[in-house]
Structure formats: C-alpha cells, structure tokens
C-alpha cells in the first residue's frame, strides 16, 4: 500500500483479464499449434482444425460434466461408461427393437441422468466419497451394458435418424466443416455453461461449495442440494455426449467408456481447473481437450509414435497439477 496509485493501476488491468488460470493453458495450446504448423503443411488448415475439434468434441462435452463436479471438489470416474451405456440404450432400442429414435434418445438421456442422480444421492445422503461412489457406478454401468448388449456394436444405418443429427456438415462461403453440427453444439454448450457458471446464483454457489463448503453452508447455501443437482446435471450432459458420440461414429459402441474418465480429468486439469475445487473456468476445459487433440493430430502428421502423444500428455498433466498445487500453497499463506 506504500504506493497506492501505481499499484492499483496494474491491479485493475490484471483483474480485467478473464482469469490467470486460463492463460497458461491458452499459451500451451497456441504454442503447440504454432509448432505443428511449422512441421506439416496440412496441419494448420481449416479442414484439419475442424477435424481436431470434432475428434475431441465427445470428450470435451463429457468434460463439461466433469468440470462441474471437479469445481465442487468432487470427481467422476463413471462418466465415460455412463455415456457408453446411454449410447447403447439409444441405438439398441432403436435399431434392434424398432422403437422410434426420438423415444430411445429420451430413454438414453433418462438412463444417464439417472446414473448422475444415483451418484449424487450416494454422495449427499450416504456421505460417501465421490471417488468410491463413481468407481462403483462405473462398474455397474459397465456390467449392465455388457449384459444388455452382449457387447455387440450397433450400427445406426438410417442416415436420417435423429441419433445421427450432429453428424451434419456445415457449409458456408464454399467451406465445409465436417461434423459442423456437432462442433456447433459443443461450442454452444461451453458458452452456455460458462455464462451460467459466472452469471447465475446456482453457478456461483457451485464455486462456493467447492471453495469452502462449510462457509457455503453457513451462508445458507443448500450445499447438499447443490451437489445432488451438479451430479444429476452431469449425468444429463453425459447423455448428450452419448448422442454426439453416436453422431460422430455412427454406432453404439460397447467398447467405449473405459478411458474417457481419465481423458476428461486430463482435459479439466490441462484447462487450469483445480482438483481441490472452487477454482477454474469451463472455457479452460475445452482448451485442455483441444491440447490433447492437437498433439494427437500433429504427432500423427509428423509420423511420431502414438506413445509420444501419451508421454507428452502425461508431462503436461503433471505440470498443470504442479502449477495448481503451488498456487494453492501461495494463496493459503
């Protein structure tokens, strides 16, 4: 406070930035794009950019749910499997049982939302730790899916099915964006989610619950109800991701679901959101998801081994968590 005017000027300028937490991930994304652009002429093109986005969109949408949960200082290991189960409900009932696709779509969303609600109930009513609860529901969803589908991939052959709605390309000014509808949905969901998190009372309560649950409770926020709502909403989002996945790959895939939980956590962490809860921005999550996609595409074009991508992602995750841990230490001092 010795030199109030000078200091307040700089501080004001800093405060106007969206949040420092997203700057690092954004820099990492831009630098990696710049690097790969120099490595292969096909990398930095509109087609490839759209392709990368469409390749990460399913994980990105799943990661919206994961972000909401991590912001409350929770974690969800079941997200990918719940999504996979919902895709099997949507496709098998439509293709094998001949039910109308809009109905099976609703049923799939109902199943995923139900799983989210179950997670929420176990966490709020029985006070079980989210890690254990979602580990349990991960296995439950897996087993139900295997029994129900006999692990048969279901191909959606009706090109006009609503289940394939988001596969549509978007064309404008002579440019075609593959899976443009899916990309548009993804961007819309991220925009809507970001807006709601920062501009509605429930959105702020979610941060408060993750940041200091006791303080949130004492100020009258119904913390348990907030948590229940968050897990249920996340389940619904997983269903939407399932719909997106069917559109993207044209199938209900019983082999899906086992790696997405870690993929989403990776995206969330790479996006600068704290695993301790209460800090981070949804916009960071899509940046985190894109970082993974950019490395996969860039390294393929360079002809590098697939393991290199996994190696680099691993290093980035550790860097991101280390930054989180160090900044937490600094703040609590």
């Amino acid at each position, binding site marked *: 406070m010795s030199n109030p005017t000078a200091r307040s000027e700089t501080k004001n300028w800093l405060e106007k930035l969206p949040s420092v937490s997203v700057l690092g991930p954004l820099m990492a994304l831009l630098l990696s794009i710049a690097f790969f652009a120099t490595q*292969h002429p*096909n*990398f930095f093109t509109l*087609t*490839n950019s759209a*392709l990368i986005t469409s*390749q990460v969109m399913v994980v990105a949408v799943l990661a919206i749910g994961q972000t909401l949960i991590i912001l409350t200082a929770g974690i969800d290991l079941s997200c990918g499997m719940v999504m996979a189960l919902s895709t099997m409900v949507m496709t098998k009932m439509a293709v094998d049982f001949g039910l109308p696709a809009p109905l099976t779509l609703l049923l799939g969303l109902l199943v995923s939302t139900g799983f989210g609600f179950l997670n929420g109930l176990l966490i709020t009513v029985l006070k079980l730790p989210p890690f254990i609860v979602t580990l349990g529901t991960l296995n439950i969803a897996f087993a139900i899916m*295997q029994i129900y589908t*006999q*692990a*048969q*991939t279901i*191909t959606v052959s009706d090109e006009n099915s609503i289940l394939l709605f988001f596969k549509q390309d978007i064309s404008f000014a002579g440019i075609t964006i*593959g*899976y443009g509808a899916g990309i548009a949905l993804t961007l819309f969901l991220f925009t809507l989610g970001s807006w709601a998190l920062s501009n509605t009372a429930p959105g702020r309560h979610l941060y408060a619950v993750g940041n200091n649950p006791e303080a949130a409770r004492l100020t009258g926020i119904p913390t348990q109800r907030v948590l229940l709502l968050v897990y249920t909403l996340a389940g619904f989002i997983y269903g939407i991701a399932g719909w997106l*996945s069917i559109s*993207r*790959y*044209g*199938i209900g*895939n*019983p*082999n*899906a679901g*086992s790696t997405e939980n870690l993929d989403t956590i990776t995206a969330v962490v790479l996006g600068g959101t704290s695993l301790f809860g209460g800090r981070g921005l949804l916009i960071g999550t899509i940046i985190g998801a894109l970082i993974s996609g950019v490395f*996969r*595409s860039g390294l*393929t*074009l360079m*002809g590098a081994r*697939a*393991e290199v991508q996994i190696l680099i992602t691993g290093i980035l995750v550790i860097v991101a968590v280390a930054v989180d841990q160090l900044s937490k230490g600094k703040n609590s001092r």
Partner: protein
Amino acid sequence: MRKIAVLAAVGAATVCLALAQGKSPIIGLITKTESNPFFVKMKEGASKEAARLGAKFISAAGKQDGDNAGQVAAIENMVAAGAQTILITPSDSKAIVPAIKKAQAAGVQVIALDSPTEPADAVDALYATDNFKAGVLIGEYAAAQLKGKTLKIAMLDLFPGHPVGIARHNGFLAGLGADNIDADTPDLASTPQVVCSQDTFGDQAKGQTAMENCLQKNPDINVVYTINEPAAAGAFQALKAAKKTAAIFSVDGGCEGVRNVDKGVIVATSQQYPLKMAALGVAAGVKYAKTGVKAKGYVDTGVTLIAKKALAGIGSKDVKFGLANCWGN
C-alpha cells in the same frame, strides 16, 4: 507364492481324483474379453461341444483386451475349481506364461486358442489361425487388384507389440510383394508404400479417428489395411466423411464383416474359424481327461479369403460362402 503352491497342489490332487473316478471332466475357457463377438462365438462353440462330449464347461475373461492380471486370476481360479484343461486366448503373450507354468505344474493341460504365447511352447498346444497367412492372402489380393497403380497404404494396426497384430501386418506387406519380410520378422515392418501407421486397438471409433488423421497426413491414400473388421468399418466412415475412396482390406470374417464385403465397404477379408478352435480345444480336453494324453504342437484352424469379386490367380471364396461360415450376428 506359497498360497499359489498350495492351490496348485490342491488342483493337482483334484485332477488326479477326477481322473481316477472317471467323473465328467472340467474344461475351462479364458477369453480376452467377454465382449468381442469373436470370443462370444468361441465360447458358444466350446460350450456346445463340451455338452455334446459330456464335459463340464466353465469360462472367464479379462476385463478388456490386454488385461493380463484378469486372465492370471482366471487361471488360478480354474485350477482351484478343478479344471483339467484350460483353453486360453492370451491377452499378453509373454506375461501370461508364468501363470500357465504354475497351472501345468498342477497337472493341468493348457491350450492356447487364437493367439500364441511367447515362447510358443509354453502351452501344450496351439489351435489358431495362421495370422501371417491371413495377412498374405489379403496382401496378394490387393497386389492383383491394384496392379500397376502407385500404392499409398495406411496401416491400421492393433496395438504395439502384439504377435497377432505383427503377423497380420507383416503378412499383408509380404503378400503385396515385400520380399524382405517373412513370418519370422519380429516387429512391425514397413515399406516405402506405407504412408501412415496407427494403432486402433481393434475398435471402430479409434479406427475412424486413426484413418482421419492418416488422411490429413496423406489425402491420396488408396489402400487401407485394417487389423480387424470393426477397425475397417471405422476407416470406411472416415473415408466417407472426407468424400474419398480407398480399397480396405481386413481380417476376421465375422458376419458383419462379410456383409461389409458384400456392400463394398471392405474389398477382401481373411476369414478365421473360432468355432473350430473351440471344438478342437474341447475335444483335446476330453481326450486328456479320459486317456491322460496331452495334445501337442500347433494346429492351423484354417483361413479363407473372402472377396466379392474373384481375381485371376487368386483363390478366393464368395460372400455366400463367407456368410455360411461366419461368426457373430
């Protein structure tokens, strides 16, 4: 360790008891996963054959492909359950060997189905497709069909280090005419024609992603080798979305895959016969229980090239044959 030794001893005692009393023999089948239709069919076949021959049949599987720990536990449990013969499709050809040795020490006959172990003689017998030959067949077909064209090949493989993936991959390139590659080439080989190599884990969605990235790298790809038919279906999706065409070759001969040959999604596929593997394995198990004689060596369960169009000088069967002999639904 001691616990396992005790288990093994108990297992050995049980086997002797069963042999002595002439009770119905117990035969166990351990597949890579419960989920792959190939293994579903194999299990069905083994179960039927066991019922026919009056043997008791039990089965188990790893949680996903590559789950060695799950398969080791399954072997231990089956030995404890008194199985005299264990049929296994090893997920990890090397890592499974110690567990197999322990089971054999307990008097259990272990037969590998579909995939070999490393070393191959770690099991009593192997009933499997000659995967190198499966690759050669589609490679030769590709060479004949695309004669005179400059080939730009995308290789959509299984995952690093798996012998089946290596055998099919190398067989395909050998069939295309690479004379420096043979069945003993230890790793994934490459030729100048190969412009892109990607792992798919045999999964349709991952196959699609892999093909999309290959097309970014080289939009002129005109030949696609795929480890199996789901990966081929994924590659086709990617080509279709990019409004491109390429000749896709695959291995398996599942019913969905054969139908895709009929539709022109896949040009040719090498069909293998899980039912036959299962039937041979169960028969060997019953024989061991009755006579105490173990099966030995490698039995090729056969592979047939399925293509819609017959080419001169290439022995292929048509879609009708393929559908009559396919597995899955």
